[in-house]
């Protein structure tokens, strides 16, 4: 490792060769503002097109200013990060960016969490000295994501996420000069593109150019309708992130307060998607054992590995990009949809109401769930199993509209029967969690022995692709895990090429899994936040009395009273789905 010495604002610092000026500045606590630059440390995600030119600094001996994010330090470099020349340039560039931006901050969905807005404040912009043409693009609304490209500042973060990380290829810069903007191919609507609605573009957009479709108003309307019974389910990753929206430390678990808030907002019953996650394990785990058994018995028609199917963006991805492999993922519906299917049958019966009068709302860390809820195959006579799906951020907005003091709410418990869950259900919220939950149950169902341990450290972590072999009492089960669709693509291509040696693979579209979902509070590039959420998920799991899905008493009861057996006829009808070739 070669060390070099540089001077930043008269502070001498020694850095490794290859360190950028921005990296060196951080070492000596010199704050250089950035805008397009975006880095998720340890997750191999970085956007540094060097395009915004906000981070420019003065380097002795250099003719023009250097972008700190993209310029490597060289030995003896002398850097001024806040000279008059730099400040003037920075403010002028910022004014230029703002001169092509709608002044709609008061009513913008991103107001308060907008990087552009906070940077304008930081730079003390009080007047924009330029006026002229402003970019004007049509609004593009899809089931999940709204593109309002008048607000695009060409930071290209979304493009990097969509292409490099997710390999979805829906977004790319088009046109030239002042007219350049990030768009879809041929400027088609997002819903006609290869977009999977993973929402990672939204989660990194520094402005209000990319936002989620806001369904909160429709929920308020449903809550106000006396003829409707409105119930809600909350996904595991929501409870470990929602607190951030109320100023709490990342990783704070707010399950109880969230339940209390939802009751106060007016939901008739507050349930847990974790319950449905346990149900998913029953079905998906049984399917895995079934496929595995046939495979081991020599049945060539059964394909392995089996891939998980609870992530809706992942489903969109393989339907659009790997339509030749639709028979590989598990047919089990996602927890959100299992919940909806059971709620509108079993629960509605129990409550004695018609499905049309029951409104099922889901709170998800995800934007693709909005699209998933609208899929035709998840409707009965046009009535969807899940009526509305809102993101963690939307829930926070909903709470802020109705409750003044979230922090001091009491902790309350979920309603039953669909609020009872196990630790296995909780860990669905992180990469590796679904497969760990499946292992906990499949092991015992297969071996009829009690698991010697519950924590499978070998399945945990944040590496993009992980693999482990779990000993099923003499039978080695090879497991693969991928998060981020680019990583998923690699595993899929291996399968297609016959190179895959796995029995089961868990895939989550978002980096980190649902904790890093497109509907979560914005992490603004701090991977420590994602790590804190992951730690909270495992903490929640460890604190649960029951940690194996098949031991959830309400799940057992559900099979006894209603479903029969996993993979049985009723389960097949209500809890399994099929996939379609959506390649265009």
């Amino acid at each position: 490792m070669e060390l070099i010495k540089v001077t930043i604002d008269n502070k001498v610092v020694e850095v490794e060769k290859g360190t950028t000026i921005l990296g060196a500045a951080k070492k000596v606590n010199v704050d250089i503002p950035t805008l397009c630059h975006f880095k998720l440390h340890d997750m191999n995600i970085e956007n540094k097109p060097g395009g915004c030119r906000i981070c420019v600094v003065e380097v002795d001996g250099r003719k023009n200013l250097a972008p700190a994010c993209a310029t490597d330090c060289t030995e003896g470099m002398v850097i001024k990060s806040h000279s008059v020349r730099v400040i003037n340039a920075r403010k002028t560039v910022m004014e230029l960016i703002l001169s092509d931006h709608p002044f709609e901050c008061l009513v913008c969905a991103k107001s308060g969490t907008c990087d552009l807005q906070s940077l304008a404040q930081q730079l003390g912009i009080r007047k924009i000295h330029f006026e002229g043409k402003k970019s004007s693009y049509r609004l593009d609304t899809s089931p999940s994501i709204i593109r309002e490209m008048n607000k695009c500042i060409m930071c290209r973060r979304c493009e990097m996420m969509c292409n490099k990380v997710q390999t979805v290829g829906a977004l790319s810069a088009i046109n030239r000069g002042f007219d350049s903007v990030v768009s879809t191919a041929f400027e088609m609507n997002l819903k006609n593109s290869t977009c999977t609605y993973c929402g990672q573009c939204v989660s990194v957009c520094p402005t209000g150019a990319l936002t989620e479709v806001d369904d909160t108003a429709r929920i308020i309307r449903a809550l106000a309708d006396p003829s409707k019974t409105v119930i809600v389910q909350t996904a595991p990753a929501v409870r470990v992130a929602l607190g951030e929206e109320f100023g709490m430390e990342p990783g704070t678990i707010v399950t109880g307060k969230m339940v209390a808030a939802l009751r106060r907002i007016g939901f008739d019953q507050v349930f847990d998607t974790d319950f449905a996650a346990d149900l998913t394990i029953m079905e998906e785990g049984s399917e895995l054992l079934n496929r595995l058994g046939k495979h081991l018995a020599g049945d060539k028609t059964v394909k392995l590995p089996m891939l998980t199917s609870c992530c809706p963006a992942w489903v969109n991805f393989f339907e659009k990009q790997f339509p030749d492999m639709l028979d590989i993922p598990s047919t089990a519906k996602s927890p959100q949809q299992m919940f909806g299917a059971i709620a509108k049958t079993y629960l509605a019966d129990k409550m004695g109401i018609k499905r049309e009068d029951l409104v099922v709302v889901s709170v998800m860390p995800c934007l693709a769930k909005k699209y998933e809820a609208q899929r035709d195959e998840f409707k009965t006579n046009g009535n969807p199993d899940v009526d509305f799906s809102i993101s963690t951020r939307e829930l926070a907005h909903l709470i802020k509209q109705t409750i003044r003091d979230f922090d001091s709410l009491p902790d309350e418990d979920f309603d039953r029967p669909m609020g009872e869950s196990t630790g296995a259900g909780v860990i669905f919220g992180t990469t590796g969690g679904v497969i760990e939950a499946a292992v906990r149950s499949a092991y015992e169902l297969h071996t009829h022995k009690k698991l010697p341990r519950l924590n499978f450290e070998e399945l945990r972590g944040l590496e993009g692709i992980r693999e482990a072999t779990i000993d099923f009492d003499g039978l080695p089960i090879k497991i693969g895990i991928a998060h981020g669709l680019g990583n998923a693509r690699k595993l899929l291509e291996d399968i297609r090429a016959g190179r895959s040696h796995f029995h089961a693979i868990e895939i989550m579209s978002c980096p980190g899994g649902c904790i890093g979902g497109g509907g979560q509070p914005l992490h603004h590039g701090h991977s420590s936040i994602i790590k804190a959420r992951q730690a909270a998920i495992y903490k929640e799991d460890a604190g649960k009395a029951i940690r194996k899905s098949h031991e959830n008493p309400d799940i057992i009861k559900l099979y006894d009273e209603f479903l029969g057996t996993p993979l049985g006829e009723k389960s097949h009808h209500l809890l399994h789905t099929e996939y379609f070739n959506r390649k265009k």
Partner: protein
Amino acid sequence: MGNYKTEILICGGSGCKASQTVLTAKLLREVLEENNLSSEVQVVMTGCFGFCEKGPIVKIMPDNTFYVKVKPEDARELIEEHIIKGKKVNRLLYVDPKTKEIISDSKHMGFYKKQNRIALRNCGVIDPENIDEAIARNAYTALGKVLNEMTPEVAIDVMKKSGMRGRGGGGFPTGMKWDITSKSPAGQKYVVCNADEGDPGAFMDRSILEGDPHSVLEAMAICGYCIGADTGLIYIRAEYPLAIERLKIAIKQAREKGLLGNDILGKGFSFDVELKYGAGAFVCGEETALISSMEGLRGEPTFKPPFPSVEGYLGKPTNVNNVETFASIPEIFNKGAEWFASIGNEKSKGTKVFALAGKINNVGLIEVPMGTTLREVIYEIGGGIKDGKKFKAVQTGGPSGGCLTSKDLDTPIDYDNLIAAGSMMGSGGMIVLDEDDCMVSIAKFYLEFTVEESCGKCSPCRIGNKRLHEILEKICKGNGTLEDLEQLRNLSKVIKDTSLCGLGQTSPNPILSTLDNFYDEYLEHVHDKKCRAGVCKSLMKYVIEPDTCIGCTACVRVCPVDAISGEKKMSHLINQATCIKCGACYDKCKFNAILIK
């Protein structure tokens, strides 16, 4: 000339072809055939002669008779008079505008006298579609010499000693670039020829590729040998169909002769060339954007380092040189580094090709030794300003360059002097402006170009240039303020200081240099609401001078909006509210009774 006694060279460059030289050549051949002269006289379609002002050019060899503005209908007379009767066709010969003397041999013309054609040595001389003609003029001897006599290190040393600097505009020492690329770890490497010529009015590279494609192919092979590359790529804009066609023919012929392909000249060195087409984006002339475009990505620059010499096309070390740079290289090896270094001045060696355009008598393509003064180029080679008007400025360096004034006329042209004077060499555009040009409008014109051609990646270039252009428009419309002038200067400096690539780092130059040299004109626009050149329509009006007007009504008849009133034989009046300032009346008036105010 082979077996022929006489050769008729006719320009087959894009410009002259547009003036029907294909037809002229056909007619020349027909008349020769009629007179049974086809076996003695050959008609050769060459590349550009450079003297485009006088095109189409026909040159008869060996007596060096230079005919100008030759039309298809002149074909018969040329053959019957010149070839058969041996009598020159005087009406098609060049007349010196000053002395009014007829000059039939081009080397005595002012336009050619001071030129030294190295890169253009074969343009207008050979048939670019016939490799034998190129070989007869020493094509591929340099490659032979390098492969036979030199190690790559020695050849790179020749390049270094020659003092050659990149002709694309940057002026980076070519030998050093080759050296760096050669020292990048061995493996797949590429030689790229940048033929994405994009400056408005520039056609140096096009003319070379159309007139002498082999010089470029030969130099690319030499470069390949020096840096350890077996693949050459020519990035050429699709708008150059003739250059593309001639390159394809040249590549095919070179392969057939074993001058490209495997084991060239039996020396164990293999090299081949492919064409890559650009869609005409100006920014793709920037080497990192060019590479992105070749890779099928959006044509956008990336920051350097890494330089292409280290990490270029497909991540491999890539040596990018411009067409003109390559075209000069074979002569360096044929005649020696010392010979090349003896031409030019201390820091800039050799010659430079310029596309001379604008308000100048001899519009065309010229090649002069570095160090030639602007005065020599404009007044001796260029023949001075058109219509006896007054010289105002010369714009060099294309849209990234600046405007130089009469105080700079004696500046020797080289990379460093032009920068010191507030402009730049660029790829060789040179546009002469006279008193009828409004300098604010000129700056606006160039900004319009850079606004259009900015890739949009970095904010200062994407938005800043747009804002600069808007301010200039405001000034030209008469709505400018003194604050706008300050804003122009501040914003220009920030754009230069903060932009990602060369385009944005230089795009405000036309504004800064006109602000420096013609601030009074800006002030007039802003303060007096006046455009002295009469270019900014919002700031001028056409008025009829009552004493001069005889009431002929000619102006009334051409006015498209019926803005002129007045009785016959009485002085007329222009209704300013209706007038659209088209200038039709001004052009029509024979009595100079219409004035621009």
